[in-house]
């Protein structure tokens, strides 16, 4: 009874956060609870060690990369705002959003979602996926189950298919085109008014919708 408002007040700049990410107050509170639960020592920010404590994430082959996505280069901590902004990538695309030419692109646009996925490959953030970077991801996902030669042949084949300007790297545009014909499966937050729980569901998105809206 009224505890929701008091929690919201404790979070600094919560209005700005809600506007930028599009989360509702209930969602922000849920995420804040989760943030506090992960921040076991109560420091007000998370470090890689806190993420590492999540068991299912430790089991994920690219778990460290996902954790890395939360930390900007050079920073060792994640505050609540950054945490929420990264998770906002996974909200569903707002289909009814009016197209204003001067407003910045929302975090959960298709383009930004693809950028997030691209960054999981492109660790040195030079805007291109080099052959080495591709090999690293493949090695992470496949572990010791394949030989080096098999790994190299897979990498070669992938670059051959996706690299259109023949510079032996995959740029963001080429990545986008390579994913164009795929059906994307990314989870999303379901926003329904008055709802008590955060509902996150997997949504399937067909390529026709994508072409119409964001590209």
């Amino acid at each position, binding site marked *: *009874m*009224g*505890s*929701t408002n008091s929690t919201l007040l404790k979070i600094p700049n919560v209005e700005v956060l809600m506007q930028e990410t599009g989360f509702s107050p*209930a969602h922000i*509170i*849920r*995420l804040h609870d*989760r943030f506090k*639960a992960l921040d076991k020592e109560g420091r007000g920010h998370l470090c890689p060690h806190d*993420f590492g404590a*999540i*068991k*299912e*994430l*430790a*089991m*994920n*082959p*690219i778990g460290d990369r*996902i954790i890395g996505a939360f930390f900007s280069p050079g920073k060792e901590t994640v505050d609540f705002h950054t945490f929420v902004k990264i*998770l906002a990538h*996974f909200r569903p695309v707002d289909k009814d959003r009016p197209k204003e030419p001067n407003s910045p692109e929302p975090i959960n646009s298709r383009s930004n979602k693809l950028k*997030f*996925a691209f960054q*999981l*490959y492109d660790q040195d953030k030079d805007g291109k996926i080099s052959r080495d970077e591709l090999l690293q991801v*493949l090695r992470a*996902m*496949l*572990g010791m*189950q*394949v030989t080096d030669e*098999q790994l190299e042949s*897979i990498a070669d*084949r*992938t670059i051959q298919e*996706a690299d259109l300007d023949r510079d032996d790297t*995959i740029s963001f545009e080429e*990545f986008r085109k*390579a*994913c164009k*014909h*795929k*059906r*994307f*499966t990314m*989870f999303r937050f*379901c926003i329904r008014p*008055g*709802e*008590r*729980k*955060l*509902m*996150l*569901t*997997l949504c*399937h998105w067909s*390529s026709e919708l994508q072409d119409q809206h964001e590209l």
Partner: protein
Amino acid sequence: MEGFWAVFFPVLRVWFTCLVVLIMLPAMFGISLGITETYMKILLKTLEWATHRIQRASRAEEILKRSASNGLIQRNDSSLEQEIEELRRNRPKSAERGDFTLSDVLYFSTRGIESIVEDDVTQRFTSEELVSWNLLTRTNNNFQYISLRLTVLWGVGVVVRYCILLPLRVKGWLSELVHLMCYRICARGLSATIHYHNKQNRPKRGGICVANHTSPIDVVILANDGCYAMVGQVHGGLMGVLQRAMERSCPHIWFERAEMRDRHLVTQRLRDHVNNKTKLPILIFPEGTCINNTSVMMFKKGSFEIGGTIYPVAIKYDPQFGDAFWNSSKYSMVSYLLRMMTSWAIVCNVWYLPPMTQEEGEDAVQFANRVKSTIAQQGGLVDLAWDGGLKRAKVKESFKEQQQKKYSHMVVGDDSSD
């Protein structure tokens, strides 16, 4: 002012005497005056009414239907193979041979982000969320102000709980320390309504009783219906006092922390106890830690290696009346007890399950899992393979390798037919 106190104290005295007569005496003799039952009925009716009001206010019928699980995320539970097939389905190229695609990474990243927002293990160590509000602020996460009547009712509830129920229970609790064998007084003190099912399967002497663990109160609940020998670590503080008190009544098996590491010693002592058919059945909680009563986690195989007959018991608390889960990292023992005594009541169901023994060709782990599923099924709990010890420890590398194996099968396994 003085006149007020002069009147107040005799009233208080009369009040307490009434309570003693009406509650403690019958408890000592095991008779029920039916007061607790009436109290429960009134409580249920009130909570139903409160829920109704909240439902009306927030059009929440759909929430009740949807929240079968305790989870935050509605997950797609299909396997790795199915998901990646989905991702690849629209490929213009031939999809007969398995291959790597750039979008495969999306599957893993989705799973990763899902687990950051919510994971199966961590949520078992926090209190279960209720659909309806049971007028205790501690279970109120998201309910806003609904109506004046509800607030008044809540206010009355506070008064009742802190001024009437609490003093009652403190008195009752103190006497339990004095009368060691009178667990019934303690149970009444917590307004514990326990329904025992299948009493014919009650654990017998020389056996091992195995149950799922939610709080230290589990012990009280089980001990109310039979005498057990406890196994456990010697504790300091309040728990230590209780332990030493219990020691005087029944022969229990307490271990020093150092001894617990020597598994053979522990197993040997337990085996001796079990083989002596005149000794009381041992009570063991194989999960090793308190879980929040929505699931059963991995049973440690140690208890199942001793031999002897296992009597499984399923304990399920009704969360509407008070959350019995002890979050040991969040609350100390004393504050936990305080919370217990200011809840409405403790209502739980105890099912005694038929005895089980280790079968031919079954090792301890398989036996433990078999017992675990029986308990989970009876209690309506989720059967998880995760280790309760993960509350404090790390995940093993072998889990990651399993995922890698599965994925490589898809990518490379098909390629070999090239």
